Structure formats: structure tokens, C-alpha cells
């Protein structure tokens, strides 16, 4: 049994619990899917975990702003316990709806150790619709982000209708200056997407796809690393596979970049 315990928060219309748990298991952790109410009523205890994941889905159907009601429910019922969890040096990952919940809770951006202030919005895509596509991403090597360490570029799917990263100028400047911008939409060649659709799929300011808090231990992103847990998840795999075979290579069974991102978190806990 692994020494690293991951809490996958589920319920109320969230839906990426299975694959997120699977991906963390591949990354060497012990992942447990826990219903939000089991955490609230004490059936499950945050003290037993080192990584907490806010997963993708449609909590409360996203009816009043994506992730808003989830953030309110958690803040109202177990806000203090979550802040204690952060204080203890643990890790939090928010993916898609989870990222939206983190910014609405205030866990991100976490300026000045204030983890309750809302200063970022993930709002309606500029394209006006929900969109499922794979994106090219580049990381920020100067960022403190635990999750992106040693990863230069990645490809993951985005699947959202409200993923446009928005904040006022001052907030954006600070995020950029302090290297809290850990992940940005890019072109296939690694250059910035520069707001160009569909490379930047939602109109996010500064192509921002994911940010971390100043400590690098809380990370939120719109793309889905857990959806790239196996090489056959990649949209080009049949092409890459053919090319490899012609060169006498078999497909690499090494971990995908999605799994490596989670391994970073697991290893961080292990080494802490």
C-alpha cells in the first residue's frame, strides 16, 4: 500500500472521479473517492490525506457560475478544515470544475497567504460554447509549481464552456511577475498561443491555462491531465504508433505527461 493518500472529492454532479483515481494510482498513490458529504459529516477525515483533488464535472450543474456553489458549500461547512489542510503543507489540485471551485473559494491565487479572497474568474469561453479539443501547453520553468516540475510542454484535452481566465490588470501582473502562471496555452511549436483560437480555446488572458499559489503547492488548471493517463488517449496515437513501428520501435510504455504531473505531486509528498 502506498504511503501517499489522495482524496478525490466527488458528488453533486462532479464526474471525473474514476479516471482521476485511476491516474493517481498509476502515479503511485493510494487514491480514495470521497463524497463531499462524507467529508462534511466526518465519515472521512482530511487528516488522513496529503493530496486533495477538486475534480472535473458539473457541480450543481454549473447553473450559477461554474464551481461557485461547490466553493460556497465547502467554505460554509468545512472551510476551516481545508485551510488547516493547506497550513499543514499538503497539496491541492483543481482540474477544470475543480479549478473553478478553487478560485471561487479563494484558494487560488492565495496572495499574501489569504486563501479566501476571490480575485480570479473562469468565465464563459469567448467562442460562446462548450468545447472539447486537445491543446498544446507550455509550462513556466521559473514557477514554484510542484506539479509542473521537470515538464516543459504537455498536451491535454480541454472540455469546458467556462474556462476563460480573467482577472484585473494588477492581479494578472502579479501572477506573471511571481511566476504563479504555471501553464499557458501554446502553439504546436511551443510558441505562445497569443490569444489565437483554437490554440487558446477560450480567450484566456495571457493564454493562462493554469496557476499555482505562491508556495506552488496549490495548482489549478482547465485542461485535464488525468484524461491522458495512457498513450492511447492521445489523439495522434495511431499515427505516432505507425511511425514508431516503421522504425522498429514499440510504443513507449513510459508514463504519459499526465501521469508525470501527478507523480510530481506524489514524489513531493514522499520527499517532504
Amino acid at each position, binding site marked *: 500500500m502506498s504511503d501517499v493518500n489522495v482524496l478525490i472529492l466527488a458528488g453533486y454532479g462532479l464526474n471525473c472521479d474514476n479516471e482521476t483515481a485511476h491516474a493517481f494510482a498509476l502515479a503511485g498513490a493510494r487514491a480514495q473517492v470521497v463524497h463531499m458529504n462524507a467529508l462534511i459529516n466526518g465519515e472521512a477525515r482530511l487528516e488522513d490525506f496529503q493530496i486533495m483533488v477538486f475534480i472535473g464535472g458539473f457541480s450543481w450543474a454549473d447553473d450559477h457560475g461554474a464551481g461557485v456553489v461547490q466553493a*460556497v458549500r465547502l467554505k460554509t461547512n468545512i472551510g476551516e478544515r481545508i485551510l488547516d489542510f493547506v497550513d499543514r503543507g499538503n497539496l491541492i489540485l483543481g482540474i477544470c470544475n475543480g479549478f473553478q471551485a478553487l478560485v471561487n473559494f479563494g484558494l487560488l491565487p492565495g496572495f499574501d497567504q489569504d486563501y479566501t479572497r476571490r480575485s480570479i474568474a473562469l468565465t464563459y469561453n469567448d467562442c*460562446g460554447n462548450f468545447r*472539447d479539443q486537445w491543446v498544446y501547453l507550455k509550462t513556466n520553468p521559473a514557477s514554484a509549481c510542484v506539479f509542473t516540475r521537470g515538464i516543459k510542454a504537455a498536451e491535454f484535452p480541454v472540455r469546458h464552456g467556462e474556462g476563460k481566465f480573467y482577472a484585473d490588470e494588477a492581479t494578472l501582473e502579479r501572477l506573471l511577475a511571481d511566476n504563479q502562471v504555471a501553464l499557458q496555452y501554446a502553439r504546436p511549436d511551443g510558441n505562445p498561443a497569443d490569444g489565437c483560437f483554437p490554440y487558446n480555446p477560450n*480567450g484566456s488572458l495571457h493564454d493562462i491555462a493554469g496557476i499555482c499559489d505562491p508556495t506552488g503547492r496549490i495548482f489549478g488548471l482547465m485542461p485535464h491531465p488525468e484524461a491522458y493517463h495512457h498513450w492511447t488517449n492521445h489523439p495522434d496515437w*495511431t499515427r505516432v504508433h*505507425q511511425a514508431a513501428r516503421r522504425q522498429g520501435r514499440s510504443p513507449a510504455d513510459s508514463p504519459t505527461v499526465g501521469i508525470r504531473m501527478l507523480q510530481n505531486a506524489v514524489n513531493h509528498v514522499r520527499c517532504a
Partner: protein
Amino acid sequence: MPARLEIALKDHLLDAEGEGIRHKASDYFGIQLSRVRSVHILTIDADLNPQQFKKIQTEIFTNPVTQVSSFEPLAIPFDWTIWVGYRPGVRDNAGATAVEAIEDLLGVTFAADAAIYTSRRYCVQGSNLAKDELNRIAGQLLANDIIQQWQIIPQSKWNPENGIGIIIPKVQLDHIPTVDTVPIDSDKTLARISVERNLALNPSDIPTIRSYFRDKNVQADRARVGLSDPTDVELEYISQARSDHCNHNTFQGLFHYRDLTTGQSERVDNLFKTCIEAPTRALKEQKPWVISVLWDNAGAGRFDDEHYYVITGETHNSPSNMEAYGGAITGIVGVYRDPLGTGKGSRLVMGGYGYCVGPRDYRGDLKPHLHPRRLLDGVIEGVRDGGNKSGIPTTFGQVIFDAGYLGKCLVFVTAVGIMPARINGEPAEHKRTSPGECVIMCGGRVGKDGIHGVTAASETFSENTPAGHVQIGDPYTQKKMHDFLLEARDKGLIQFITDNGGGGLSSSIGESARYANGCEIELEKVPLKYEGLDQWEIWVSESQERMTVSIRPEDLDEFMRLSEKHAVESTVIGRYTDSGKLHISYDGKTCAHIDLDLLKHGFPQWEFEADWIAPQQRGLVEPVIDGPQECGMLLLDMLARPNICSTEWIVRQYDHEVQGSSVIKPLVGAERDINSDATVTRPVLAASKGLAFTQALLPAYSAIDAYHMTACSIDEAVRRLVAVGADLDHIGGVDNFCWPSIQYHAVENPDGKFKAAQLVRACWALRDMCKAYAIPLLSGKDSMYVDGHLPGRYGEMHKVSAPETLQFSAISVVEDIRNCVSMDSKMPDDLIYVLGITRDELGGSEYYAHFDEIGLNVPRVQAENFWPVYQALSQAISRGLVASAHGIYRGGLGVHLAMVAMGGHLGMQVDLDRVPATGVNRDATLLFSESAGRFIVTIDPSHHQEFEHLFEPTTCARVGTVTAAPQFEIKGLDRTTIVSVAVSALKAAWKKPFGDLI
């Protein structure tokens, strides 16, 4: 005091919703608007104090970064304001989640009559706009009068203090529930009451119903519980259960089939038994992987030793036709309850869709309730929200445009689930109710919505069809219930589970009680959305997101605890018995007491005259069209035809990779934009097996012969699976028939006998093909009455009947997902092969349709000749010899070579004279014939001997080469180049019709 909160994006932020409306107003109606801003409104009809109002405003409903809000009207500039809100009783999903959020934040509980109503206000700016134009935008873009109301207010009449006022669309029935007794003194009386109460009883059923209630023993029995003549609850129960939708009277009917050409006649007794049940039962004997068919909500096949997959398909045509969004979301969310209610419960793993609508750019004189463009928009969005918010990948789908669907559109929805083979050591596919167990209703509450949906689906659409059966599905409530019920299943708590779909409790309890052989239901315990429903309404309401579950009394506490944890409402509404009776009471007074086996006996079989007139006798001939000179231009125009061109905008709106199970996506290729033959998903992430899924729809061939339409659809579905690497011996099918009315009437339906013959022939083809390809039918449904009556230019009414349509869905296991193949060409210098023989079969083709012709030579399936080719290709793929494989479908070889080239973004050089063909001497026929049984395959040149060795030389030929230069070149039979087009030009043409849509 009620309050109204207005919320809008800050002024400097892009309002994507408003912009979308501005664009559509211009694109659809040519109305130029300069700016549209949307305001979200919550009308809060609850007792909250000012501090509480402030708290919910700031903490829940206003994003401080992006939004502004006010309990006064927001001062957003406009020339006109359009307000759109729901009519009373229409499901308001966002209103319901707002209540949940407020209750949680404030720690309060809303009173039973308190609620939140959401609506929208659109602030429209533009110069010289006329009220008519605003009306058009409101009525044809923003709202549907069946479910919504709207107001249009010019700036000059706007009251900045009151705004739109406080509008509370609360349902107030002020009605005391009553049970009526219905006199049955004569057949005529009952027939009259059937019409008055919209029971849709079949006239031939009426004597059977009367004789039951007049039976001396039955009367004595009824007297003991205080009943005499039938109650309305009882007649509604019978009506629902006997409806064509639930009982499939058409497919179980007696057909008098006559071939008017040969004079031969045949008595066809029960199409379901002879063409669906019998072949499937026989195949189940041969194929141990077939686990459960022909009785449950979905059929089950073995995925691996530990898991079974389940599949079913549905249509939701009539509701979608009236309210596209509501109908479609209700359809997809509804079909997802079928796997959930299969065996002891299955987890949903994927969904599929098929839409058949009128031409998107229809400009003719007929006036359908919703223009096809708007209808399609609504249907796409309904399935988008229903699928995405359920967390189920929508992986595969198709759209067909045809003027025949102007009368009624078709919305097919398919669902696949997975269950463990055993639960607590017991077979998961088994379930039964037993006397003494609790009858539990889980999920949503019951309202007037959906009443008589089943009987309406069994009627032709007219202006008088009641709109009450239009609903709006609520994937959020259902997702919570799904998660809850699967946890309950895994704890071994569920003895029986089924969904409340058509017919509501009447159907789910009526059917589940047969296992125990009786039930006692206390209707007053059923949770209602609002008071005032009559007992019969509670009994037959089709309010969504409900399951009926049977739980042992000793498990009840644990079940209820789990239910509470998942925030799902569950209520014990009765118990199963062994009395042989369906016994319903309300506040202790019996309102129904019927023998459960009544429905199984004594009802007469429906009968149909079916006259077949062969195509030649109907005057169909091959058109005389001589070889085109401009094959390149023709090919580009073919690629831009609506039924061939790219529909990427639909696929991208659907989350097709949630659950992390995606292997072959709906769009593939170098630029990830070409339609895959089938999709492959991994329902069990730890396994290296996959499930391949696909669908085929070829209604155009019905214009010649529905037999061949059906045969070609099945053949196409099989080839689609073979192309991605699915196991040929493990294919299961789902048949979804959508047919125009087949009951002959000299005036109303003069060609009813012919349409009946088409149905018989389609079923024969289904039987023949399933036998030939050894495909058990894991599930299937039929939706008859696909006709509509549309007003024309002069106020005259036209009956529009849909082409006879079958959607055939096919599923199979992929042994090892790493062997899957996609359809895009992979490497320069790879060899291109065509498998299968091209014949002069342009009848019903897209090519003929391009010239408004039908023709005669419809493609024919020669299953015994095709099968060895499929086996060989299957073997080649599993041996890793194939770089790409793609079937040749609608549009023929030319179109599909182009697809392969576009997929790889590589060129190709092809010689038509090398293409295996019989009786073809024209380039156009080779390029566009739609002969079945064919593939395009590309392979690594080093594999060519091993590959060719697998095939008979007559069915496999090397026709060309993949080239690095992205130029698409085809040489004709005379060896001259007849097509030379850049691959980018092919793609531009293919994307032109809908490429700008997002």
C-alpha cells in the same frame, strides 16, 4: 416578500451569449443588431430577511471579478428589452440548484411553496428596429412558446424602478384530487371517453377492456375493495400499457403482405417474434458472450470475465419536434436511465446520437413549428447539456438532412453501460421483486409534466397535440441518483431496479410487480412538485429522473442513509405482494384494483394490409447521365453536400473523452477533424480491452426499397466496426425503427399499405442480415407515426411523412486496444488498396441526389461474399499489417478516398482501372457508386505480400500510392488524370457548409 435579482457581466467584458444572439439574428433573419447584453434574473419567492438577501447576492450569485448585480433593475443601455421566462410548471433546473445553494449557505429550509424562478432579460441595441423584428428574435431564437413566455419592451415604455416587475410562474392548481369512475355501458361510451380524456385507446381494445370490468368474478372482487366501474386510474394504466409505444402493437401485429407484381401473398404474424426475437434467441445459443437479451431495459454482452456491457437505443422525436432543447435533453438523460435500470444497475460509459432533420437552409413554403436550423441547434444543445452534465462521453453520432423530416424530426439517442458480472456473488444481470419488499421511488418529484407523453408519441403530430408532454431533463439530479444507486448496488441492497420513463409509475411498477405477482401502492406518499394532482396524474406522470427500486425491509435503513449522503430523495411508496393484483390506494381508499395478467391476455392483435409494389412497377428507372468532364469540381461539390460535409461543430460541443476512456475519438487524422468509422472506448481503465461503437443511417435507399436500406445499414455498421479493429464474432446490434404511419386510410394515409410493406421488408432484411453476419439484437425500439401536418403558403395543410428510417447501432469488443486502427493515411509511399467489388449501384446515391435523381440500382448486400473479406481485413489489422482502414459509405469511392487523404493530410495517386469492379464502364460510377462491402486500406509497402495473401485477388486490389505532396490525383479508366486537386482544397470544400459554426 419576493425579490428579483438581476445579474450581468461587467460592461467591459465580452458577453458571449449576447454576441451569439447578435450573430444569429444577422445570419438567420438578416436583422442587424449593434449590441446584445444578457441579464440573468433570479426571482426569489421566499421569506428571507435583508441580510440574507445580501448574503446570497454577494456570496453565491455575483462573481466579484466579472459580474455586477442588483435587486433593482440594472441600468444597462438598450433600445429594446426582451424578457424570457418559463411558463408555470416547466422544469427550471437553475432555479432548483439556486434553492439548494441558498439552503446550504443560510442553513434554512425553503417552505413547500417557496421557490426560485430563473429568467433572462436581453438588452438589445440597434438602429431602427421594428417590434416585429424583436418578436421574431424572441419567438424564433430566444424562446419557444410551448415552454416559455416573453415580453418585449421598448426603451420608451421601460420603468427603471420596476423593470420587468416580479413575475412568479408558480403552479397553483387549487384542485382537490379526485378519482373519477368511468361508465362502460357501451363500446361507444368508452370510445367517446377515450377521446375526451386523451387515452388513445385502440378501438379494437375497447371490447376487451369492457368485458374484463363486466366479468361477474371481477365485479365481485372489486366490490370487496369498494370499486364498481373502472376508475380513471385504472383506465389510464391500461391505456399506457397498451399504447404502441410501450406494447409495440405494430411490431407484434398481423400483416397481410401482398406482392402486387407477382401476385403472391403472405401472412406475416408478428414481426418482432419472427424477425427479431427468433434470430436473436438462436444466436444466444451459439454465442456464450450474449448475456441477457429481449427482456430488460437494455441488452447485455460479456466484456470480460468480470464485466458485462449493456446497450440500448431510444428515440425522442415528438417532444424534440415541439421543443428541441427540452425534447433532446430529456431524450438523452432518459436513455441513460435504461442501463442504470438494467440488471441490478449499470454504470454509464458512453452515449451516441443520430439526428434527422429538414434542410438547415430550408426556404420553402411549408411552416414547421420550428425551422430545421433552429430545431437542430436546440437538439444539439439538449444532447450537449444532457450528456456533458451527466459525465458520460458522447462519442459517436450522425446527422441526416432530408425534407421528409420537416414533418417530424428524428432524435436517436444510444446509451452504453457496464456492470460487474457478479454482485455479492450473485449474477448482476438477474433481478426480481419479491413479496414483502419495499417499492421505492428515487430521484425527482412528480408534477403534471409529461402526462400522456406515451400516448402522444403514438399519434401523428398535429396542431392539437397537447404540449404538456414537453419536459426539460435534469442531468444534475440524475447524476446524483446514478452515483447513489451504484453505491447501493455494490453494497448488495438492490433487488430490482427499473426506470420511470414512458408511462411513469404506471409502467415501472406495473412491470416490476409481475415478478412478485402483486403490489400495494399508497399514492399519497409519492412526493409531488406541487399539490393538486389527481391520482391518475400521479400514477402516469412522466416527470423525469426517477427510478423505481425494490429493497428488502431489512436493508431499508442503510439504503436511506446512502440516499441522504448523496442528497437524493427516496420514498417508500408501497410494497410488493403476491396477490396477483395491482392495488392502488390514496389516503386509505382504493382507486385501482386490477389483475396484473389482464394485459397479457385477450387483447386483439393489430392488423395491417401491406402491399408491395416493386421499384420498376413504381416507375423508377436509372437516369441517363453521361460522364462528367469536370470530375474534380464534381468531387468538391459532393464533399460540400450537407449529408457528407464536416459537422465538426457538433462533435466539439460534446465531451467525448470524460471518464478517461477514449481510444479512437470521433474525429481523427493529422488535423484531428475527419470522422472516424467508429469510436473505441475503454470502459474498464485497468483492462487493455475496448468497446467499439458505431451507427449507420441510410434512409435515402428507402425511396427504392426498405429491404436494401436495412441491409445496407447493417452492412455499413459492420464495416465501420471492422475498420477500427473490432472483434467480428462479438458484434451486437441495436435496431431503432422510425416509420411513417402504416395503417391504411383511403384519405388520411392512402399509401399506408405500401409503407406497411416497406416495414415488413425492412424487418425481413434485419432478420436475414443478422443471421448472415451472426449479430444478435441486444436491444431495439420502434417509433411509428413519423408524420407531420404542416401549413403551406395558402394556409393549406400538407401531410409530410419521413422516409422509412432505421438507425442501426453496432457494438463489439476490441481484444487489445493497441491494435486499433484509424482511417487516416499515415505515411508517404504507403500502398492503397480497395477491398470489395464496385458495381453499377448508384440507385439512391448521394451522386444521384446531387442531380435530384433517385435511380433504380440500389446497392445490394451479398453477405456470403463480403464476409470473407471482413474476416481477412480483421486478421490483417490484428496482425498489425494495416496502417489505415476506412469503409466506403455514402458518396462512394471518390468521396471516401478524399476522406483518407484529408485524414492523413497526404496526397494520393489512384488508378480507377485497378479498382475491383463488375459491370462498370464509367468513371463516375466507379467514383460514386455506393456498393456495399468495400474498404479503402493503406499499408506499409513492406507488408504487401503478407497482406495480399489474406484476400481473394478478385476482391482486393492495389489501386495507388500515398504521396508526400498533398495533391489528390485520380486517373480514369482511360488512364488520363480526371481529378487533380490539392488536399487542402478538398478539405476547404468539405468544411465550407458548416465550418464557421462553433
